[in-house]
């Protein structure tokens, strides 16, 4: 039988308001990244002429790496600033 969830560790020193503020900031950062991904996925096939698809599809891979690194740095900065 799966056990019932164990209660969490005791309340930390962080107030609920601060958690909500950090969550809001992280959510904005994350949504900006996801929006960039979805925009690229929809716009690139639409805007690219069919003959250029090979070049464009290979050039997108570095774009994903850049977006991932930017997301990592922005999310960690938000956590440090608190």
């Amino acid at each position, binding site marked *: *039988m*799966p*056990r*019932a*969830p*164990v*209660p*969490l*560790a*005791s*309340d*930390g*020193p*962080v107030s*609920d308001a601060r*958690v909500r503020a*950090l*969550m809001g900031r*992280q*959510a904005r*950062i*994350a*949504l900006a*990244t*996801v929006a960039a*991904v*979805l925009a*690229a*996925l*929809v716009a*690139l*096939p*639409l805007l690219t002429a*069919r*003959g250029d*698809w*090979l070049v464009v*599809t*290979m050039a*997108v*891979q*570095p774009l*994903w*790496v850049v*977006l*991932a*690194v930017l*997301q*990592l740095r922005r*999310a*960690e900065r938000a*956590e440090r600033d*608190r």
Partner: protein
Amino acid sequence: MSGGSVAASAVGIAFVVVISVVVGVVRPRRYTSAAEFYVAARTVRPWWNGAAISAEFTSAAACLGLAGLIALHGASALWYPVGAAAGYVVVIALVVAPLRRSGTFTLPDFAQWRLGSVALRRFATWHVLAIGLLYLVAQLHSAGVVLRVLTGMPTWTGWVSVTLVSVVVTLAGGMGSVTSVQAVQYWLKLVVFTGVALVLWCAWRCGGRGGARATAGLEGFEGLAAPYGEALAGAGEPSLPGVLAVLLVCALGTMGLPHIIVRVYANGDARAARRSIVATQVLLGVFFLVPPLYGILGRVHVPGAREEEVVLLLPGALLPGTAGDVLTGLLAAGAFAAFLATSCGVLAAVSGAVSACVTRAGVGAFRFATAAVALAALTLTSLTTPATSVIGVLFGFCLSAATFCPLLVLGIWWRRLTAAGAAAGLVVGGGLTAALAAGDLAGVKLGAVSVYHMAFTVPLAFVAMVVISLVTPGRVPMGVDRMMARMHLPEQIAGPAEDHSSPGTDRSSRQHSPYIDDY
């Protein structure tokens, strides 16, 4: 296939099998606890873990299926590798750090911890099992076809050999040995597929091999939409809406693949987990440059070959003789590394989830579940006809995007999600996806609804979760504020107070996990 290439393939496959078993069985130390067995003791470094995630993700579909799809359908399929890698940007943005900090180590665990419902956990486990079996069956079918093409052996030998090696590696050392095996297999696959592609490309462009066909260059590549026989889940649908649907489902489905997300827990903390995903992004970006090369080569030199076979037939077509035989052997090794990497990962992840749900979790239950899941996959493989691996894997993505994607996104970012809402979303997303796919197979065509069903199922699953959660506000779990704090605050602040003062513990053991500590 010539005698030389049969011998070379047999040597290549045997080499990969032996390497996998040796790395998997010999390397890991004896684990002292179930937690170590499950999640590789949380000591895996980001680049090592990134290589393992990439190996697991670049399955038969990525190594053989994508190239075949590009060869068959032309330019529109070039977008598939783009979508396949995009999922990790979404994962790092929305899921990784909070999920790692939650301390729950499978998707059903997360559902129970976050929403406080054992029934929901069981329900989620069924979805994990379904996605895992889809993946396993796709790998086994692909292995059977490849072994038959290369050596002439019956297809069941491929199924059985991949299953046996996966079970041995998984049973020997749990996630720790699977991680080692996969990291080795990633580099093997990368070197083999890139190296052979470059040799073949040079033989074509520089050496003038292929005669008159060499003049038919990239110009003849675009357009030419081949008729597609099997197009379940929109795979191989060459129109622009078909391509967009596949891209979006790949981007959203990656986060819910059970074997991918379990890897997050092999890292010590959220910081390392995020870096693992960035490492994965880099490694996948390199790997996904290769399938288009094979696709173009295949379109020019082996037109009419079946999807899964395009890559393997290329060396023989371009470089007849010993050189071609050696390259075929190398590709056979790479293909088997792909089958094994994905099969081991899926087997370990699904067995972990199933064993923790059915019985009291422990190493014995995990081993029993591994054998049971492997047997189920073998049975299903023998009962189904081989479709292309891309279709099976893409259907797994559809199911994941319509079930675990809304569960994770809403569970991590929305306080008012309830167990009833989550269950409703799983029913709507999973049920609709299964029903539309079953209808498609049975010949019930609903036009755009069945071809691009992910465009309907994913939003509807989100809507169902939100609406039912809002209707059942009384079922919002009690400790939701503390859970949110735990997921979104860095470990140094949110962790248990006693751990700050214990100098003997390293970062990896600081995080308390309700499901691991008391095994």
